[in-house]
């Protein structure tokens, strides 16, 4: 049953994705919520990255760029978790929240030099290599999207969450739904743009304008992810 749901979601996602391409719409895909995960510290992403509220600064967010804390994402295939040092670096100087239970917990861990045991929210099977660095390079550094937008393609609208929750299915079909959009590949599956392989269960739809060609936005080789 679960597989069936997953597969239907995938098809829906694919459908919307292709529609999205046809309309040159921004990169969006259907949501597929992951489990709600309980974290040792309920980290408020909204407070850090959310929209600033000039009328009541104590309520709104601070519009901190994702990459200010998640610095590894642009430097490594793995985004990692920001070191405790990073949290403490700022919070040392924010007296107003120092007595809050969450911040107390943070400083307790810092004094004890004990890392916090976060629970993984996004996980891929071990045979998949997703590379954060390349995606940030392309979407943020080359194309000038904001981090929130680029990270949001896969992580959803984190600025409005407290603890993060998986928003997209992160399945292979879902990845491919974007990758299919901008490379020249013949609909028959024969490579045109020197891609070696096309997974036939998702033969790209042809458009009326270019009956033989469709475009995919990322590399299409199996080994890009399955190394």
């Amino acid at each position: 049953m679960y597989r069936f749901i997953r597969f239907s979601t995938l098809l829906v996602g694919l459908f919307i994705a292709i529609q999205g391409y046809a309309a040159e719409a921004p990169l969006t895909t259907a949501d597929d919520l992951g489990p709600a995960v309980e974290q040792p510290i309920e980290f408020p992403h909204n407070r850090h990255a959310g929209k600033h509220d000039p009328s009541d600064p104590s309520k709104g967010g601070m519009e901190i760029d994702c990459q200010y804390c998640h610095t590894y994402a642009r430097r490594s295939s793995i985004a990692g978790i920001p070191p405790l040092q990073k949290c403490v670096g700022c919070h040392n100087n924010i007296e107003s929240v120092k007595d809050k239970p969450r911040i107390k917990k943070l400083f307790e861990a810092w004094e004890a030099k004990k890392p916090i045991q976060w629970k993984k929210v996004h996980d891929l099977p071990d045979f998949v290599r997703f590379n954060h660095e390349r995606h940030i390079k392309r979407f943020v550094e080359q194309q000038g999207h904001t981090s929130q937008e680029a990270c949001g393609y896969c992580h959803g609208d984190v600025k409005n969450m407290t603890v993060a929750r998986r928003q997209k299915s992160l399945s292979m079909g879902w990845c491919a739904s974007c990758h299919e959009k901008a490379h020249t590949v013949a609909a028959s599956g024969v490579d045109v743009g020197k891609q070696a392989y096309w997974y036939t269960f998702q033969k790209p739809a042809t458009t009326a304008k270019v009956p033989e060609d469709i475009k995919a936005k990322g590399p299409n080789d199996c080994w890009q992810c399955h190394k």
Partner: protein
Amino acid sequence: MIESGFDRRDFLKVLGWGGTAVALSGCGNTSVQDGKETVVSYVEASDYMIPGVSVRFNSTCTQCEAGCSINGRVREGRVLKLEGNPDSDINRGKMCGLGQAGVQHHYNPDRLKEPMLLNGDQSQSVSWEAALKLINDKLQGVSGDQIAFLTGTVSGHVKALLGNFMESVGSKHHFAYEALSSAVLRAANKKSYGVEMPRYSLDKAKVVVSFGADFLGAWVSPVHFSQQYSRFRKGVDGQRGVLVQIESKMTLTGANADRWLAIRPGTEGVLALGLINALGAAGLSLPAEVAAEVKAYDKARVSKETGVAVGHIDKLVALLRTRTPSLVLAGNGPDGFAQGSENVAAINLLNQVLGNVGKTVEAPVSAPFAQLQATNGDSASLYKLNEGMARGQYKVLFACGTNPVFSAPASLKVAENIKRVGFKVAFAHYLDETAQQADLVLPLDSSLEDWGTHIVAYQPGEAHIGIQQPLMEKLHANTRGAGDILLALLKSRRAEEYKAFEDYYAYLRAAVLQNKAALGGGALDDEGFWEQTLSKGLIRVAGSSAALSTSTVVAAVPVATAENPDYPLTLIPGITPNLRDGRYANQPWLQESPDPLTTIVWDSWVEIHPKKAAELGIAEGDIVEVISRTGSIKAQAYLFPGIHPEAVSVPLGRGQNWGRYAKGFGVNPFQILDPVFDKQTGELALNDTRVKIKKSGKRVIVIKDEGAAGGKQMGKKIAVRASTDEVDLSKEV
């Protein structure tokens, strides 16, 4: 060995169904751990520490005595993979399989984690303070003559500390023991060339005649020689080098040779002298005393004694006459006999009359610091210690990183004699056979967690000090390096002298920096030089080079071992590139990687010539008993044409009684070796054991890659050559 009825087909069937089951259950993302797995961040991170990005550190491989310089890949604080350090003259960026398995030594689940008091089968963890106090108490009132320290080959600053410790307790009884050593070769070389270890230049030779030197597998510095070998094969002046291997049991090098000659065990020296005689007859000018000495070795006699056909001798002579310079090597074949020293001397003499000394046998460069120079292990030193123990001379024995109870012949009764020592301390990584005999066991750091300096015996380029540095934090909080333990012991004796050094690292650093100028760092400040040293992983120093003596030494005549009709065969223990003397047998990669010649895994075997096997009615897989005068072992027979019909071979390194990857796999031929010693050096004559063979009546399936079970695939062709678009997969499956 498989003894049940569960054969390969059943195995594949089960595997197939199991695989299908896994595949079916795997359709969802079952390996995904959203919300379950923890992900732990750094508390504080240096700039270069990025999750998913590896950092590399240079260090030194300690898996064998070649001392290759290595480069470890470290990610998220864990060492993952080792490579060779391209900067090193020894290995130039390459490594061998044994070295690769070093990570399995480090992460080994059987490593000792706490100091332990042993009493028979009982063991009890103690603190380091208590352990060191106990040692100090036991050293109280014991004279220096009653204290012995047993190590393997040791060099660098840990050797200096060891020397100081021994001096502080007034003992001169340091024994460096290696079961597989090149001691006979070194002693013979000293006589022939004036140095123990000349530099061998295979890449300058046009023909190499190797008497049992497995330089591609397990001899002296195999990674270095493999690279020389590839240049040798490409050829000097466009002439591809020719390799002739003469041995009783084929080694990996023998399998690569252009011509492999089987020789009757122990007669290598006879052949060498015969070749000299024949070369003289073919026009090579020989010094008069040499000519006189070898006159008796005419081809017919030599051929009869060695089993090498006259035709082959003629061809060899022609080859050596037409291709110069050549290089003749003496390896682990000829040196393992009562007449081992004479054998090697005769082979060295061949190099001398051929004029190779100074051309392909070159003067070595030695590092300037005598106190750091290697004390090379040999087996004679163990027997000296053993005699002392038998006499009850020793009250306190330290054993560090060596396992004589496993690797000495049973007839020497090392295990029993150790019991006569009042107090035994073992510095050990595992509870191996020797550590089991100890009263106190001190757990050592793995070589990837410890500091060290190494000066290896075979220096192929400039004098080279290998730096060993931790590639990651200690896995277990309570292990220590041998240097740290020695330093702690010294501190309780000579507090004033050593109080400045908090630990072995501090000692090492201070000692290196003290000699900064001599080590070539005169222009740098201390910090800069130290940084440079650690990042390079080695220090090159201008060494001094001793001249080789070219005067010919006429070898005494080697005597072949007398025939013994009760024990008609010679046992040649196999030295395999993976397992060597067995100290690493608990690294499963080494157990599971097939032996290069027989492709057998996870087990011992008895190599026997097919002709001999037919004579004795033995087929592959028969469990046979190999019986010597001092013991017997049982293993599966493996019919192998690469062995002399009068010899059998059982590989060394298996048959341990400890370790989850070693215990219960195979047998230990060390145990049944006859106590025969090389007459000149007192080394155990490894290949001089006479045995007979008895069938036990049982037969097993030999687990191996090669041959009928592995190679033929039941008559099916396994590889088809066609481009993918020509293949109709539906028809293939």
